[in-house]
Every structure is written in structure tokens, then in C-alpha cells.
């Protein structure tokens, strides 16, 4: 089923895109995280450098691989390096 993947952007990722969330249309076969990031990097070149050092959270769980397959309705959070404290 086609639809959208929601991307939630924090800190420098949000600044690179200019807003905190994006809904990206995907086809019925879904999309790999790596491919989605590639697409976003083309659209928002400043996001590339951030994505290179970020962690990703898919539907509330950290993902260790960018090969993870996303389907419509999934949510990906982009976590640039943390700087709390």
C-alpha cells in the first residue's frame, strides 16, 4: 500500500530542513531507510552532513542498520549527536 513515511527532525537536522517534520510519499513496496535518506539529501543538501553522524529511531526503537525497510505509516526520527547536560 502506498502512503507516507513521517520523518521527525531534531536540532541541527531540523535546522537543515527548516521544519521539524516531513511526510514523504513512498510507493507500495516501501523504501529502505538508506534510500529515503538519499532522497532527502538531494532535496535538502545541508541535511547530508547531519545525517552522516545521526542515529535513527524507527517507530520508537533505535535502528542499527540503514537497510531497515520502511512502509507506509512508519515514523523515522533523526537524532543528531546529543548535546544535553
Amino acid at each position: 500500500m502506498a502512503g507516507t513515511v513521517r520523518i521527525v527532525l531534531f536540532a541541527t537536522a531540523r535546522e537543515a530542513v527548516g521544519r521539524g517534520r516531513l511526510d514523504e510519499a513512498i510507493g507500495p513496496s516501501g523504501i529502505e531507510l538508506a534510500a529515503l535518506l538519499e532522497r532527502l539529501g538531494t532535496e535538502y543538501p545541508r541535511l547530508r552532513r547531519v545525517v552522516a553522524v545521526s542515529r535513527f529511531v524507527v517507530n520508537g526503537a533505535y535502528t542499527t542498520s540503514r537497510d531497515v525497510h520502511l512502509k507506509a505509516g512508519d515514523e523515522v526520527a533523526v537524532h543528531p549527536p546529543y548535546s544535553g547536560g
Partner: protein
Amino acid sequence: MPRIRLTHGRLEIAPAYAELDDPACGGVVLFAGRVRPDRQAGSRVVRLDYEADRKLALRSLEEIAASGRRRFGLGKALLWHRTGPVRVGEVSVIVGAAAPHRAQAFRGARWMIDRLKSQTPIWKTERAPPERRPPRRPGPRRGRSAG
């Protein structure tokens, strides 16, 4: 007050200490990180804005507290962090550890703040004073907190 907090409200030391009350624990260590007015490039940070991935950050703080208690034999562990704007001089984070012996409390508190800084999805953005801020030009980072 809960021992895990992610809050827009001010953080105060006395209520944090009160949360660490435990008859078995003779040693209490509190760490407070506060916003420094570092100068750089002739400017000054007047505040930091903290944002968090709230759900994951709370989960992370809970996990750090639980691991801290287990690893260091802490009776109580506390992790409080501000979100939103925090002014120079204000406290952005408090970490507390209560243990039967002081070595555990020191090591536990140190471990928890290190862990928080590296593992908890919280970010700070530094804001220079408006009057000196060049328009629409994001400057270099100008301030630090908590060391």
C-alpha cells in the same frame, strides 16, 4: 516530585536533595550543570534552548537511573533535565546519587551524567544576544554548559 524529570520549569537543588532521602544511604552526591556565559568572537551566550525527543529521552533517563542503581548499589538515583530556554546561570541538569558509602555515590553520579550526555536524546542550541547577532547568519557555537 519524581526522580526522573524533563521539564520547562526551573530546577532547584533543595528539592532534588529531598528526593534522595534514604535511611540506608549516608552519602549523597549531587551534580548541577548550569549555563555559562562563555565569550567567544566578542559575543556572549544569553541562553540555551534545549529540546528533547521526549518519549525516548524519558525512557533513557529511566534506564540510566536503573543501571546506576544496579551498577553502583545506589539507594536512590535522580536525573532532572530542563527543556526549552535556559538562561545564563540557571541549572540545565541535576543528577543525584544516594548510597551507603561515598565512593559509590561519587562514581554513580559521575557515570550517570556521562551517560546522560552521550545517550539521552536531548540537544542544546545556543542563542547569542539579539543586539549582537548578525541577521540570518548562523554563527559558531558560542557557549557551553555543564562542562
